């Protein structure tokens, strides 16, 4: 095992995994979407409320690996208070920097599942553009992998 390996499950990741922030269903919600990563069997649903164009509240539910669930939990903290179009164009690197761990290409899909689902929810509710990598995935059922 290398030091790099151990960083993957650094404390902040395990903390978000075990104590996810903004966890649960928002009812009613202005926007929702769900998605899976068939590779791990990760599942994430997001619920968003708007104040105008601003994300005033957000929650998620899901099950899956520590990376997917912790990343989505961190994402909810990042995007609250931002506008839909800001989040729609948010590069995935911003989330990955926050997660701050080395990820193999396979685990990268776990890490960005929540972000993809959120972008689909915003697209459905606000018509924000879906970047190339999420095109064709704008149904209720986002599948990456």
């Amino acid at each position, binding site marked *: *095992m*290398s030091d790099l*390996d*151990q960083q993957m499950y650094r404390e902040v990741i*395990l903390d978000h995994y075990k104590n996810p922030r903004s966890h649960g269903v928002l009812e009613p919600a202005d926007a929702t979407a769900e998605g899976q990563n068939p590779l791990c*069997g990760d*599942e994430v649903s997001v619920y968003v409320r708007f104040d105008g164009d601003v994300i005033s509240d957000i929650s998620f539910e899901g*099950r*899956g690996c*520590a990376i997917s669930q912790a990343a989505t939990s961190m994402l909810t903290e990042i995007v609250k208070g931002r506008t839909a179009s800001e989040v729609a164009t948010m590069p995935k690197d911003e989330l990955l920097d926050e997660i701050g761990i080395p990820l193999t290409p396979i685990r990268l899909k776990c890490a960005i599942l929540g972000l993809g689902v959120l972008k689909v929810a915003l697209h459905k509710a606000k018509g924000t553009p879906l970047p190339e990598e999420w095109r064709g995935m704008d149904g209720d059922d986002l599948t990456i992998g």
Partner: protein
Amino acid sequence: MAVTPAAKLDAQKLRADFAVFDEVVNGKPVAYLDSASSTQKPRQVLDSMREFYEHSYANVHRGVYTLAERATAGYEGAREKVRAYINAPSSREVIFTRSATEALNLIAYSWGLENLGPGDVVVITELEHHANFVPWQFIAKKTGAEFAHIPIDDLGELQLDALDEIASRGNVKVVANNLVSNTLGTINPVEKLAAWAHEQGAIMVVDAAQAAPHKKLDVQALGCDFLAFSSHKICGPSGVGALWGRRELLEEMQPFNFGGEMIRSVSLERTSWNELPYKFEAGTPAIAEAYGFGVALDYVSEVGLDAIEAHEHELVVQAMDALAEIDGIRIFGPPADRRTGIVSFELENVHPHDVAQILNWENIAVRAGHHCTQPLMTRLGVAATTRASFYLYSLPEDVDRLIAGLHKVKETFGA
């Protein structure tokens, strides 16, 4: 399990045939516990393929020159080895495919499209790999046939008392089942299902991808009509698999792929099909791979399937006993004497992908996921499992390392 004491194999010695184990990280080779997904390849297979490419390679069947004759002899020799391996009556009934998956699709399309319709019932099981599930689900929808499944009990064994109810739904035309479950290792009662299928006037399709590497196969004793398996799970190269089918059925069926080799004559008006097995082998096949497949069958036959089965049984007993000692582990599937060398489990509060990731730090290779058996995952109430699987080169030390690795996982997660 019938095991003769004389049939013991020496895994440590066999490992000398597998260069992958020469590679060490921190002084240890990989603990390769993912053979159910694909096996490592012995140098006998690799050397033979190189030799074949260097000295016997040309396209098969049509060439009149010496190299083409050698290539054809090698390719057709492999077909005979496949025939012998499954005790099929004739090598004309053995079709080389790209994989077991392609073999199963071939049956579903070529047989299913022609023979299924409304009022008919296609029967699969809750244990199926997607390769023997999705093609039938698709063809059933397309033809209007009903798609029924045999449920499993909590141990992952088929509930055959559901058969009467299934028969009452219409004309049962196909029963498709894996001989061994790739996720749980369950050995299924295929002979019984085949007998029942024939009572209904149905055909019996056996997915033997997971059985062929570990058990002696005899299509005549199983009483099935089709059987599919692949090379890469039996120490052979990837890219080639085999379908066996009863001649009467194969002869009635339309081709699955069209092109060269599969025709008898072609004119602007009509085309007639080549004889078996070439009718189903359009295009240039995986020639050297088929050849290597045959060599791999020789390799495992020489080690001995009884010995392989007994060796895996010892490892699976060791693994199940040791796993049961770990707090928070749930083992899926039947007791060791009713499964092959496969153990699927979950560790409470840790996703299998995280388990596999941490085991990888210790150079332990296991599979995490749904194992292409999502209906089974649903039945078990999990999204995924961690699966360890064994083969002829697996060692008791591999199991010890798995167990130590799981303690590391628990430590990392505070689980």
